[in-house]
């Protein structure tokens, strides 16, 4: 897609793109290049010199059982966050779509959590499930269930998943609601006249029609779970207990800043770079499809 009408000259456009170019170069391309470069070296303990090790950092990384475990943790975490945020959102959107009046009121109320930062969401959920003062954990205790996410792996994972998914329910709801509103009424009515019941109509007509939105949300929620949940994990579990909630992004942080293992942290950044690249390709493949749709 190109404009037919353009202006002449090359100095002005270069000046216009210069600020963005400069900022991208300094804060994006240079650091990204540095990450790739550093991933090939091991710095000495004093940071004075470093030794070229080729792919040694990567070999070491994938030989490290903690790193491999972190991959599995990230996969489980992302799948759970995606499901826990998509399913309630779709349910609420379907119900809201059936309402003639009031749907926008509910929408206004449901938008709220989207504006709440993941780190703040983490604090809210931590407060509810705190082992000493948490209301929910206290009531669970009354029912004989001893909640302790500080010690229990599964409970820790469950808590960070719910806290991460919470704000995303709003986000996904908005997209599902918009998609459902765009489903042509006539198609649904035709099916209704032919005697198809609500569930049948939903699974054979509505769900296929909103599948582009669903797929899009699937991708962005996985991206979210990978990269934007750092605040939730840092506030609630700090990656614990015993790395049970250490997702890849958290490990880059804890190895690079807390552990000061720069070579490994850089190699991890490069691995994440590849993961992001793959996700971008998937997303654009899908975008392309939708343009021709």
């Amino acid at each position: 897609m190109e404009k037919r009408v353009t202006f002449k000259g090359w100095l002005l456009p270069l000046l216009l793109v210069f600020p963005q170019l400069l900022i991208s170069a300094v804060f994006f391309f240079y650091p990204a290049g540095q990450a790739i470069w550093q991933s090939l070296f091991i710095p000495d303990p004093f940071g004075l010199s470093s030794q070229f090790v080729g792919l040694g950092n990567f070999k070491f990384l994938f030989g490290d059982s903690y790193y491999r475990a972190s991959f599995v943790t990230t996969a489980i975490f992302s799948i759970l966050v995606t499901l826990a945020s998509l399913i309630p959102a779709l349910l609420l959107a379907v119900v809201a779509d059936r309402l003639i009046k009031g749907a926008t009121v509910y929408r206004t109320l449901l938008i709220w959590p989207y504006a709440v930062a993941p780190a703040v969401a983490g604090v809210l959920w931590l407060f509810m499930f705190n082992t000493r003062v948490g209301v929910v954990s206290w009531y669970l205790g009354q029912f004989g269930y001893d909640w302790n996410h500080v010690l229990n792996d599964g409970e820790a994972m469950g808590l960070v998943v719910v806290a991460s998914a919470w704000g995303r329910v709003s986000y996904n709801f908005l997209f599902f609601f918009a998609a459902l509103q765009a489903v042509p009424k006539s198609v649904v009515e035709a099916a209704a006249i032919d005697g198809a019941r609500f569930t049948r109509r939903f699974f054979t007509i509505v769900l296929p029609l909103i599948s582009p939105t669903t797929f899009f949300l699937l991708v962005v929620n996985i991206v979210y779970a990978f990269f934007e949940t750092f605040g939730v994990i840092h506030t609630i579990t700090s990656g614990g207990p015993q790395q049970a909630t250490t997702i890849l992004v958290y490990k880059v942080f804890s190895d690079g800043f807390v552990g000061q293992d720069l070579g490994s942290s850089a190699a991890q950044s490069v691995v994440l770079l590849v993961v992001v690249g793959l996700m971008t390709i998937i997303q654009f493949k899908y975008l392309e499809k939708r343009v021709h749709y």
Partner: protein
Amino acid sequence: MRALDTLPDGMVEKRGSSLWLSHLVMIAGVLVIFFPIWLAFVASTVTQPEIVKPPMPLMPGDHFFENYSRALNAGVNVPVTTMLVNSLIMAIGIALGKIAISLISAFAIVYFRFPGRTLFFWMIFLTLMLPVEVRIVPTYEVVAGFGMLNSYSGLIFPLIASATATFLFRQFFMTIPDELAEAARVDGARPLRFFFDIVLPMSRTNIAALFVILFIYGWNQYLWPLLITTDPSMNTIVMGIKQMFPSGDDTADWPVIMATSILAMIPPVIVVVSMQKLFLRGLLESEK
């Protein structure tokens, strides 16, 4: 809204009992979603002893002003007012900075053919999806090298180095009719004149929608401020809350922490709810 009201009732769905059920489900959904916020609000209006002896009350107490003024004026490490101001500067800086640089570069890409244009286009394309989380260590080193730790520019600049906004404006500029540019050219208007007189006014809604999205993006940043603001007086509110928890076994000052949490969510919530239409538009368009 679709013109559903014109249809006879019960055409697609039986109304009545199922309608009530729908409202019931929505209300239940809203209550469940709101519960964490409600609890935080309650905690911010009661005293510490009421919280540490569980179960805490589920209805607000009468210490609202006391807790909030304690948070705003004293906080734990630094008054929350300071953190609020820092967050505000950061969020507005990111939103305005990103909008400004992307507007002009999108204009250049769409309305000019200049050497290196394709290269530039691919470069910004690359920045599109790589979040700061992935390149934190080297980016931190760059910012430290410039002496920008504990500064607003250090908080803002690395986060505007992504091209999402440029793409959005490019998409929008492509929809501006060619006749307008042609007319401007025939009239002998210079490119910048065309930009300020035609393109900018036409982009107003898009700019506003993007502002809402970027403001929230900036306000809710956590990892980056955590790394580069070691000085409590430069903390942003979202990252500062975690710093209010005591290390070790001391009991956290829950009423103040929860008041701070509420204060941290008020600005973005106000922006989202009050500019809902713009926000929805920005959200649905920017993610396409």
